[in-house]
C-alpha cells in the first residue's frame, strides 16, 4: 500500500470537505440561515433516533453498491453512467415477479426476483458494453441515452399495463405481498435485511478487485489495454463481463429498494441515486474500500440534510456540499499538478541553463 499517496489523498479529501462545508455555510448565511444551527440540525437529523440511523445505513447501502458498480466498470476502463436505468429496470422487473407470484413462498420469490433483477440490469448494461468493445461507440453517450429510455419505459409500464388498479396513484405498479417484504430491522426506517446481502456483495467485489489475480488483470486492462492484450489477457471479454456485472448489481439495488423499502414500483424507487453513488465513487478515486467508507459519510449527510428541513433549510444543501467537494478535489489535483510541472520546469532550467529551457 502506498502510504504517501494515500496520506496525500486523505489530506486533500479533508481539506475539500472542510472547504465545501465553508461554501455551504456561506450559502446558508446569504440565504438568511444560521450555518451553525443548520449543521447542528444536520447532525441531529442523522443520529436523533433509531429510525434516522436505520435510514442512514439503508442509504449507505444504496450508495455503496452503486459506487462499487461504477468502480467495477472504471477499473477496466469503461464508465457506466447507465446505472440509473439498470436500477429502474431491475426494480420494476423484480417487483413484477413478486406481484405475479403473490401468495407463494418467499423462498421461491426471492431467487426468481433476484434473477429477474440481475438479468435485466445485466443485459441492459451488456448493450453499451458490446457496443463499446465491438463497435467502439463511446459508452458514456449510449448509457446516458439508455437511462432516459429505461426511465420512459418504466414510466409507461407503471402508468399503463402494470398500473396499480385499486389506488388512484398516477404511476405505480401493484404492491408486493406483505409476506414478500424483506424483514425490517428497525421499525419505521427503510433498513431491511437486504443490507446483509449487500454486505456480502460489497465484500466480494472488494476481495476480487483488491486481492485476486483477476482484480490485478482488471487493473492492467483499465490502465494499459494494449499491454494487457499483448500479454495474452482477454481484454474485450473482461470489459464486457465487468460492465454486465456492474449492471447486474445496479439491478439488484433496484430489487433491494423495492423489496426492502418501497414495496411497489414507482419513480421514487430511485431519485438519481445511481448518480449520487457515482459521485461517491469519483470522490473515492474508484477504490472499493474508500467507496464503502465514503458512502457511510455521504449517507449521514443525506439523511442529516432531511433533518435540516426542520429548521427551514432546504435539504438540497446536501447536493451542493457533495458536488463542491468534487470541484475542490479536482481543482486541488489540477492546481498541484500545474505547480509541480512549473517547479520541475524551473528546476531543469536552472540546471541546464537558458538554452534548453527555450525549447520547452
Amino acid at each position, binding site marked *: 500500500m502506498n502510504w504517501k499517496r494515500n496520506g496525500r489523498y486523505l489530506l486533500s479529501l479533508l481539506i475539500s470537505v472542510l472547504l465545501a462545508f465553508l461554501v455551504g455555510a456561506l*450559502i446558508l448565511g446569504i*440565504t*438568511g440561515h444560521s450555518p451553525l444551527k443548520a449543521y447542528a440540525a444536520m447532525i441531529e437529523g442523522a443520529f436523533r433516533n433509531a429510525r434516522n440511523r436505520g435510514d442512514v445505513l439503508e442509504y449507505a447501502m444504496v450508495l455503496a453498491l452503486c459506487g462499487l458498480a461504477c468502480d467495477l466498470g472504471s477499473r477496466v476502463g469503461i*464508465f457506466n*453512467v447507465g446505472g440509473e436505468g439498470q436500477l429502474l429496470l431491475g426494480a420494476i422487473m423484480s417487483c413484477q415477479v413478486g406481484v405475479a407470484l403473490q401468495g407463494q413462498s418467499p423462498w421461491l420469490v426471492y431467487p426468481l426476483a433476484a434473477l429477474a433483477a440481475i438479468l435485466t440490469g445485466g443485459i441492459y448494461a451488456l448493450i453499451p458494453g458490446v*457496443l463499446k468493445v465491438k*463497435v*467502439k*461507440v*463511446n459508452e*458514456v*453517450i*449510449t448509457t*446516458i*441515452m*439508455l*437511462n*432516459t*429510455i429505461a426511465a*420512459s*419505459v418504466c*414510466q*409507461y409500464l407503471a*402508468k*399503463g399495463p402494470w398500473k396499480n388498479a385499486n389506488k388512484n396513484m398516477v404511476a405505480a405498479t401493484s404492491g408486493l405481498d406483505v409476506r414478500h417484504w424483506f424483514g425490517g430491522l428497525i421499525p419505521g426506517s427503510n433498513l431491511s435485511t437486504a443490507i446483509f446481502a449487500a454486505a456480502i456483495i460489497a465484500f466480494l467485489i472488494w476481495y476480487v478487485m483488491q486481492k485476486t489475480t483477476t482484480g490485478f488483470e482488471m487493473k492492467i486492462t483499465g490502465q494499459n489495454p494494449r499491454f494487457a492484450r499483448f500479454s495474452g489477457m482477454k481484454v474485450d471479454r473482461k470489459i464486457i463481463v465487468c460492465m454486465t456485472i456492474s449492471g447486474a448489481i445496479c439491478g439488484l439495488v433496484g430489487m433491494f429498494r423495492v423489496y426492502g423499502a418501497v414495496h411497489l414500483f414507482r419513480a421514487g424507487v430511485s431519485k*438519481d441515486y445511481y*448518480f*449520487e453513488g*457515482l*459521485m461517491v465513487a*469519483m470522490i473515492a478515486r474508484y477504490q472499493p474500500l474508500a467507496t464503502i467508507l465514503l458512502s457511510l459519510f455521504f449517507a449521514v449527510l443525506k439523511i442529516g440534510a432531511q433533518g435540516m428541513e426542520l429548521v427551514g433549510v*432546504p435539504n*438540497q*444543501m*446536501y*447536493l*451542493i456540499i*457533495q*458536488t*463542491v467537494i*468534487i*470541484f475542490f478535489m*479536482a*481543482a486541488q*489535483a*489540477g*492546481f498541484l*499538478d*500545474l505547480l509541480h510541472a512549473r517547479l520541475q520546469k524551473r528546476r531543469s532550467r536552472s540546471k541546464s541553463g537558458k538554452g534548453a529551457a527555450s525549447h520547452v
Partner: protein
Amino acid sequence: MSEFEKALSTVFSVGTLQQMLRSATPVALAAIGGSMTEHAGIMNIGMDGMILMGAFFAVLGSFLAQSAFAGVALTLGVGLLVGLFFGLLVVRYRSDEFIIGCAINTFAVGLTSYLSRSFFGTAGAKGNPALPVLHLAFLNKIPILGPMLNDQSLFVYLTWLIVAVAWVFVYKTPYGFWLRASGEKPDTLRTAGISPTKMKWIASVLCGLLCALAGAHLSLGHLKGTFAENMSNSRGYIAFACVIFAAANPAKAYLAALMFGFFEAIGLRLQGYISSDLTQIVPYVITIVMMVYVVVRKQRQRKRTAKLEGPASA
C-alpha cells in the same frame, strides 16, 4: 374519416409544427453551445446543469428587476461564470470532463432547488415577466409555414440568427478553423503558433453562454416566466444527443433539435392513441443507431484509405 387518418391529421397540423419549433429551441441553443465544446475536443455532459442554472437565474433576474431582459442579462452573466468555471477545471486543471460534467448537473439541481425554495418560498416561481411574443403580420399570408413561424417567443427567431452565426463561425472563419483543430489536431495547431488551450477556453465560455440562453428561453419564453425544480428535464442530454447526431455541425444540430421537438409535439398529440412515454423514446433510439452508423462508417472509410495507400503507408 378512419381512426388512423384522424391521428394522422392531428400529427401533421400547424399546431404540432408550432409546438415542435417551441420545444426545439431550448435544445437547439444548448446543442449549438455543445457543438463548440465538441469541436474543441471536450465531451460536455454538463449541459443539463448549465441549462437549469440558466433557467433559474433568468427567472430570478426577471423577478427581482421585474423585467425579462434583466433576467436574460443576469443569466448571461451567470452563464459566463459557469463557462469560465468549466474551463478552469477542464481546460486549465485538466480534470476528467465526465466527472466535472456529472458534478455540474447535480450541483445545478442542488443549487437551483435550494435557492428557489429560499427566494420564492415554494418549489418554484410563476408569472414573472416573460420574453415578448412576436407577431409579424406579413407571415400569416404564407400558408402553413406562416402561422407555424408566427407568434413565437423572441428567442425562437434569435436562435435562427445564432445558428447562422455559429455555422459561419465554425466553418468560415479562422477562429472556427482553429477551434476544430484544437480538438482534432492540437499539436499541429500548436506548431502553427496558436494555443489550443485558448480555443478550448473560448469554446467553454461560448457553451456556458449559449446554455444560459437556452435556460432563459425555457423559463422566460417557453414557459412564460416560470421556474420549477429540475425543469431542464434532461434537455441537456437531448442537446448532447443532437451534438453527436449532427457531428457538431450547428446547422445540423438545429435540425436534430427539430426532430426531438417533433417527437415531443406528436407525443403530446397522440396521447389518446399511444403513451407519450413511448413516443419520447424514439429520438434516443435513433441517436444510438445513428452513432453506431457514424462510427462504423468512419472505420470502414479508414480501412478503405489504408487499403488504397497500401504498403506505402506501412
